[in-house]
């Protein structure tokens, strides 16, 4: 274990992986609440188009992916506010279109194909030292915004109409959540890659939901599950020479199935109550 922790690239992977895990876990709470799992899938695949655009235009691929994915997120948010097309239909259009754009552009840059696997499946162990601070900054900003607007996002997620009636800027909050989702997805490409990042935006909250009896308990379990998955997944990746992104997602999914099997036997965040209210 001391060998494992002694390498600088492992330390970088642990720091960025933990921060991304916490951010994804808190975001996953709202993704599950708002049934946005398909949005996560769509945005993560849109990121491939952004990566490819960056390669073709000669700008850093992750920066291009961030701009492109936020753009797609805003278009999805804009379409959601209109009547012509439903949100999932819009995502269903953007998902393959962005993916196809990415594949075509990358096929035009043959030298770049070797790096494609890193974006598709992630490799947190390859995070460079100059990438740590930007990723940490993005995660801390995202967590700060999610914490600052937590109860507002919760209200809008549960009942947008009543939140609007109460004077909350539901539309702006929805766009903020979509933007955070897009930026976090791009940042997490280094962790688990395009194909697997959407799992990291659902599984932590799903694990929390399976175990906890309260919103606070669900958040705690989600964060613990994400951080635990990153740490155990990285260790397994190191020990058995496994792809790190896939190892992290498999550990995360195993945690979910264990939680599902254990059910709600663990009283995390309160015990069940018998009804005393009148019907």
């Amino acid at each position, binding site marked *: 274990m001391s060998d494992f922790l002694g390498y600088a690239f492992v330390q970088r992977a642990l720091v960025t992986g933990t921060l991304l895990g916490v951010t994804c876990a808190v975001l996953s709470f709202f993704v599950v609440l708002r049934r946005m799992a398909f949005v996560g899938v769509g945005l993560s695949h849109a990121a491939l188009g952004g990566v490819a655009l960056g390669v073709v235009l000669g700008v850093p691929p992750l920066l291009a992916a961030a701009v492109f994915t936020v753009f797609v997120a805003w278009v999805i948010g804009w379409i959601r506010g209109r009547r012509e097309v439903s949100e999932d239909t819009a995502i269903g259009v953007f998902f393959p279109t962005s993916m196809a754009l990415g594949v075509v552009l990358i096929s035009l840059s043959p030298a770049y194909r070797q790096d494609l696997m890193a974006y598709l499946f992630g490799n947190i162990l390859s995070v460079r030292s100059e990438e740590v601070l930007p990723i940490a900054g993005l995660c801390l900003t995202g967590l700060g915004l999610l914490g600052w*607007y937590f109860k507002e996002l919760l209200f809008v997620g549960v009942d947008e109409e009543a939140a609007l009636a*109460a004077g909350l800027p539901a539309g702006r909050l929805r766009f903020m959540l979509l933007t955070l989702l897009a930026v976090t997805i791009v940042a997490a490409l280094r962790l688990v890659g395009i194909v697997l990042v959407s799992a990291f935006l659902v599984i932590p909250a799903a694990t929390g939901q*399976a175990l906890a009896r309260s919103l606070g308990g669900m958040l705690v379990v989600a964060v613990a599950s994400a951080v635990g998955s990153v740490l155990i997944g990285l260790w397994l990746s190191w020990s058995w020479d496994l792809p790190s992104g896939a190892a992290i997602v498999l550990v995360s999914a195993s945690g979910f199935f264990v939680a599902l099997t254990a059910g709600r036997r663990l009283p995390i965040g309160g015990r069940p109550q018998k009804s005393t209210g009148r019907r």
Partner: protein
Amino acid sequence: MISEPTAPAVLLDDVTVSFDGRIALDRVTFQVPAGGFVAMIGPNGAGKTTCLRVVLGLLNPQSGVVRVFGRPPGHLHGDVGYVPQRIVIPRGFPISALDVVLMGRTALLGPGRRPRAVDREAARAALRRVGLDGSAARRFEELSGGQQQRVLIARALCGRPRLLLLDEPTAGLDSGARARFYALVCDLQHAEGLTLLCATHDLDVVGDHADTLVLLDHAVRAMGTPSEVLASGALESAYPLPDGHVHSAAERETR
């Protein structure tokens, strides 16, 4: 918060709303006196929910005047509580009745401030007022439809409103639960001095509680006390039945 003493709680004057050229509200005029209970009835798609959205300030009418406590809508959020038909929470999401009620304090608290002991006490008090003080920690999804509606009323009350807007709040409830719901709403109206504006299909129950019925079918077809509206004959034109069917036992006897 200051309003003219004589101003009605809600005033709609010659209000017209259309969507893509289709008229949803056609020169609608009525008012809700402070402390009164006005129920809007009418068939599906008659414009009842549109009317509530106009009062909430979520829709701007193409023409006409809307005032809530003497001011344009959308500026009195703390004074207006909203009770929807229902809310849908993902299955298994561990949100309790108290969590839902606490949402009513969100706008009062503002961003970055967590609910304090006083907010939790206000939420518990609101649950007590709707008879659910023992269910604060229960999951919202485990409550019956009637209990869920009472939680949503508690959430609205938790924001300390003067006006409560209810959008078909008893949809899906059985007749007993609907009667209990309106009895509770009426008790709250008198105990808290609330003004109520309700969109409903409950012709059989709401007439026992509302001061005024507004029969809406894009335009106001009838308005008055429940007995006046229910006896006006306007219901038959708003709710047309197939040939051979009759509306009431009395009508059947006269045939």
